[in-house]
């Protein structure tokens, strides 16, 4: 039996059968399990020479902090990075997938990737999943046509903006941007403003916290400043160490070897019964 030479693409896209089942279960009274969300503050702004992206580093699972120092700024291409808010698995998977597609595209065309290419690949994917892929992204980069900054919503709509914020801390961060942003910022001014916006999210939003990550992208160059600021250090570590009351025996002195070192002699006589 000869097999099919070319692989046939699967007919139709996502199968929504399980979604219907989930809705039916919720109606019957089942509580849906929660998933790891990034409850987040992510921001981006365009400055004189390029784009600066910023993000906090807290990943939450309901009321619990699941990861105190996660990475929310994802690599898409050497000149394009993407911050992700929403369900952590969704943002990781979708940015990974589009990064792969961009890499293949670069091989085929021999050119650097453009931000609008990443934008279109992301939005088409998210739209085809009708919002079930819960990824809200801030995409920024510098290509031959200049610096670009976009926001992408889980249903697939996009905005092109000079400064943008997403995630649960977006209102806190946007307040900072709206009062202090102006065009033609220098690199240091831009980085300070982004850090300030993220800190505003970290301190005023429960879903955001820990540290500030920043990524500066300019023409031909990018700087990934992981943990640029650590405004939440763990301050109360006892320096004295631990001391036990006198009755406690510290086990170290109680360890007795079970057996002396045994030497194995090859080819010795068999043991006599």
């Amino acid at each position, binding site marked *: 039996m000869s097999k*099919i030479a070319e692989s*046939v693409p699967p007919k139709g896209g996502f199968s929504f059968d399980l979604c219907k089942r989930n809705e039916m279960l919720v109606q019957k009274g089942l509580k849906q399990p929660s998933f790891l969300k990034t409850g987040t503050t992510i921001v981006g702004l365009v400055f004189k020479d390029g784009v600066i992206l910023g993000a906090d580093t807290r990943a939450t699972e309901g009321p619990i902090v699941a990861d105190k120092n996660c990475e929310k700024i994802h690599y898409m291409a050497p000149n394009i990075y993407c911050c992700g808010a929403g369900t952590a698995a969704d943002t990781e998977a979708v940015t*990974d997938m589009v990064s792969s597609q961009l890499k293949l595209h670069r*091989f085929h065309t021999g050119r650097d990737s453009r931000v609008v290419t990443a934008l279109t690949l992301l939005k088409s994917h998210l739209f085809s999943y009708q919002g079930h892929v819960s990824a809200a992204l801030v995409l920024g980069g510098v290509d031959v046509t200049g610096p670009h900054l976009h926001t992408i919503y889980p249903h697939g709509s996009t905005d092109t903006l000079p400064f943008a914020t997403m995630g649960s801390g977006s209102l806190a961060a946007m307040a900072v941007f709206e009062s202090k942003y102006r065009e033609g910022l220098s690199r240091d001014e831009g980085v300070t403003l982004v850090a300030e916006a993220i800190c505003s999210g970290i301190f005023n939003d429960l879903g955001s916290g820990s540290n500030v990550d920043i990524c500066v992208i300019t023409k031909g160059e990018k700087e990934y400043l992981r943990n640029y600021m650590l405004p939440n250090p763990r301050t109360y570590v006892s320096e004295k160490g631990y001391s036990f009351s006198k009755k406690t025996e510290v086990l170290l002195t109680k360890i007795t070897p079970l057996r002396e070192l045994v030497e194995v002699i090859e080819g010795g006589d068999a043991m006599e019964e």
Partner: protein
Amino acid sequence: MGDSQYSFSLTTFSPSGKLVQIEHALTAVGSGQTSLGIKAANGVVIATEKKLPSILVDETSVQKIQTLTPNIGVVYSGMGPDSRVLVRKSRKQAEQYYRLYKEPIPVTQLVRETATVMQEFTQSGGVRPFGVSLLVAGFDDKGPQLYQVDPSGSYFSWKASAMGKNVSNAKTFLEKRYTDDMELDDAVHTAILTLKEGFEGQISSKNIEIGVIGSNKIFKVLTPSEIEDYLQEVE
């Protein structure tokens, strides 16, 4: 593709036990432009003639040596359009491997997967074998490697190999000149001299293509001016 009307293979055994279509494919390769590869101690070089059908063709638009991954390159002898399909599939497979294992694909794995594709086309319904042989040059943790993949899907690792029109002369020349401890620059010179052996007309930086990968593990196609430098060193 693959409908019931085409679900019989066009490549079938002859009474003598040969697959005639593959033999014909190898003939197609043998009439293609010469290409060769040499594995040096610290890198690999692959090279090919770039004879264009007319002087009116813009030679800068033609690139026979292609990059599959940052550390693996490939050259072909035979039908150009067939090689394009294989290059596209190989690039995709390399990327899928990376997505699955988060590790750059080892050279042997990529060669094996490409060879599998070529073999599939000798056994599937309604398709013909590829009319190209590929020389894959790469540098990974196991060091520099050079593989040749044939239309049948068989692949071999070579220290030096040639394919295409002038293959027997080129291989004899390489056998004489090859040493195990060759450096990459020497290998490039030897490659140029081997190409020169069977070259019709004047060899120049415009009608050959050379790709190298050194200990920096980055595959690079040499620019015409770099080829010019090597040509002058050889003369």
